[in-house]
């Protein structure tokens, strides 16, 4: 009895099926999370009828974008059978470093953004190399990286962030294309979300690298025997996750401005989103669109709990319980297969 989780075939990569059946199988595989998302969106709309207006809905998407991008990045790592806990504090480091290095000087924005991406790639490759070459479980590697980045950010700022983010840095997370017919402002965030989403879908589900990643996560031994350089593809997955955190950090810093606690708890949310989207934490299974829908679902859940006026401790408890229930259900479902 081979279960889907240990199969080396990507869940939706049923390439041999005719296109119509392939599309149907994709919808069926992804359906549950979309139903939950739809239910939550309807609940929000009942509570707050304005929610159906394009501008309000786009504002919701804009708010959800950093988490959705982070979830897409995390998915690469999860599919490869690993986990990345360092993304939340990487976001903090990105926001704090951007403010400190740019220090309100618009001319420095682009060089610093380039530097941030470089830094993200380095962090990701360190995570990946330590995990794959030294054999340290990624749980420990990235937990350690979380502390290193958090401590580093605190050390550099002395606990009170320095510098400031100029407008040309903040536009990405804050502004949008003006005067778009029927919707008014189209936030840049939403455009970035679509572009990143398309890139992630293409990379994970349409390339050899993506297939190798599913293979490495599903059954590393079989993957190695069939010629996949497992350490290499896994390291690359960590780099993609870190880079997604850089993008999320730039958008979050743009949206909300400089803050020492930007990105706090983001790793838990991103992992929850990925699992809500049906990915298996033991690797080898998951879908990009579903993971991003998982992120939107979480954001919708936060919005709804806030609209219902639940006090924060109860909101935390409800959120935790719902996430555990969803993951337990996903595990139950994968056992049924």
């Amino acid at each position, binding site marked *: 009895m081979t279960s889907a989780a240990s199969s080396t075939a990507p869940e939706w990569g049923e390439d041999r099926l005719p296109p119509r059946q392939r599309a149907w199988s994709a919808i069926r595989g992804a359906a549950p999370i979309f139903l939950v998302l739809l239910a939550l969106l309807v609940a929000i709309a009942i509570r707050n009828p304005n*929610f159906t207006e394009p501008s309000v809905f786009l504002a919701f998407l804009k708010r959800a974008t950093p988490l959705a991008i982070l979830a897409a990045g995390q998915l690469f790592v999860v599919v490869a059978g690993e986990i990345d806990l360092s993304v939340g504090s990487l976001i903090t480091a990105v926001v704090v470093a951007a403010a400190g290095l740019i220090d309100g000087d618009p001319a420095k924005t682009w060089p610093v953004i380039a530097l941030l991406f470089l830094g993200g790639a380095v962090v990701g490759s360190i995570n990946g190399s330590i995990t794959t070459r030294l054999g340290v479980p990624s749980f420990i590697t990235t937990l350690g990286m979380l502390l290193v980045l958090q401590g580093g950010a605190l050390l550099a700022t002395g606990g009170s962030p320095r510098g400031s983010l100029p407008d040309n840095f903040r536009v990405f997370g804050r502004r949008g294309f003006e005067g778009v017919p029927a919707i008014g402002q189209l936030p840049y965030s939403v455009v970035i979300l679509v572009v990143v989403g398309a890139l992630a879908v293409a990379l994970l589900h349409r390339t050899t690298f993506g297939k190798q990643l599913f293979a490495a996560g599903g059954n590393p031994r079989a993957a190695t025997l069939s010629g996949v350089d497992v350490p290499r593809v896994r390291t690359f997955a960590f780099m993609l996750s870190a880079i997604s955190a850089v993008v999320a950090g730039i958008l979050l810093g743009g949206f909300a401005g400089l803050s020492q606690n930007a990105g706090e708890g983001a790793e838990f949310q991103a992992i929850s989103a990925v699992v809500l989207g049906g990915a298996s934490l033991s690797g080898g299974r998951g879908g990009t669109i579903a993971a991003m829908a998982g992120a939107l679902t979480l954001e919708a859940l936060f919005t709804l709990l806030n609209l219902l006026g639940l006090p924060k401790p109860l909101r935390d408890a409800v959120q935790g319980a719902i996430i555990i229930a969803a993951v337990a259900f996903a595990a139950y479902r994968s056992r049924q297969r």
Partner: protein
Amino acid sequence: MNATAGGRFRAWIAALCLLAGAVAGSGMTVGAALAQTASPAAEPASPFFNQAEFERQLHQRTVTPEGPADQPWLQAIEPTYVDTAQYKKDAPWHVCFSNAGLFNPWRVVGWTTMQAEVGLHPEIGTFTALDGEGRDEKQISDVTDLLGQGCDILIVSPNTTAALTPAVEQACGKIPVIVFDRGVTTDCPVTYIHPIGGYAFGADAAEFIVNTVPEGGKVLALRISPGVDVLETRWSAAKVLFDQAGIDVVGAEFTDGDRAKVKSIVGDYLDRYGTLDGVWMDSGATSVAAIEAFEDAGLEVPPITGEDEQDFLQKWQSDGLTAVAPTYPTFQWRTAIIAATMVLSGEQVPQEWVLPQPVITNENLDQFVEPNMPPLFYAMCGCQNMPGFPEKWGGTAP
């Protein structure tokens, strides 16, 4: 295969119904509870609200403090002095400090100011400080550690009132103790230094809202988190004044001090109500995020309250906002060191050293805007003329 798929589908639908039911159910009960709290008459008094203390603080705001007006960290409101001749000691002194932690920028500015104050006193031969890292048990063991280090005096900024009281009592038996910021429930310390308090802070902000928001205007209250006494007092004072004035408080939301959350919450309210006529905040670190929510929605920023953080003061000045900044002054960190030197010199100190709590308004805003300082620099530090300013506080020389 089909049977399993069908079963899976049914299971999902069942789970969905459960989820929807859970959310709707809790929503209904909470909705009912909210409906009650929305009408002021039905609101039971907050367990944190103390009428006598509320009135005392509102009174203290009107008293002219004793001491030099240009050095508010030396001023005291209605002091009763105690004799300290028994603690007099020859210099050099060993001054010890148990800090609750450096968990927010307010404490970072305070701690920097305190170290600068130590530098002004050559009589202080040794200054030993331990960081409690925001944990009661760590700070309790810090106090015990310090008692074994030959300190001449111990300054404590308690992490929480109840937990630190026994540790402070233990220390009082051995050396003179000074407590500042949050208090303890024992009067064994030589002096307890603190600004007027949370009721005065909340009332200063609420009075501004009452006076600037047109009648029937909608006001949103933003709070960091529930259950923290120093923050609950701010809100409960504001609530009393809003209820008296008949202000329509459309919501009181918790933000966790997270700028992104503040922006989202304000955005949600703007969607729901079109606009708001005032925003009351229990602290200022996220005021700018609230202001940006109005800007991004293309709306005029209504009267808003904040605190003495640079980012808020600068935004207020550059945009010509209608705003006010009550303060919980960081200059009290100076006062703690000054009090220590007074006690060890045998000079009298106030038993309860109540510091003034200056309010920044449009009239004196210009004095506190310092563009060369970091965004979360608290201007009411009394540190502007200290050696090492502004670099030690993270600023650049103008």
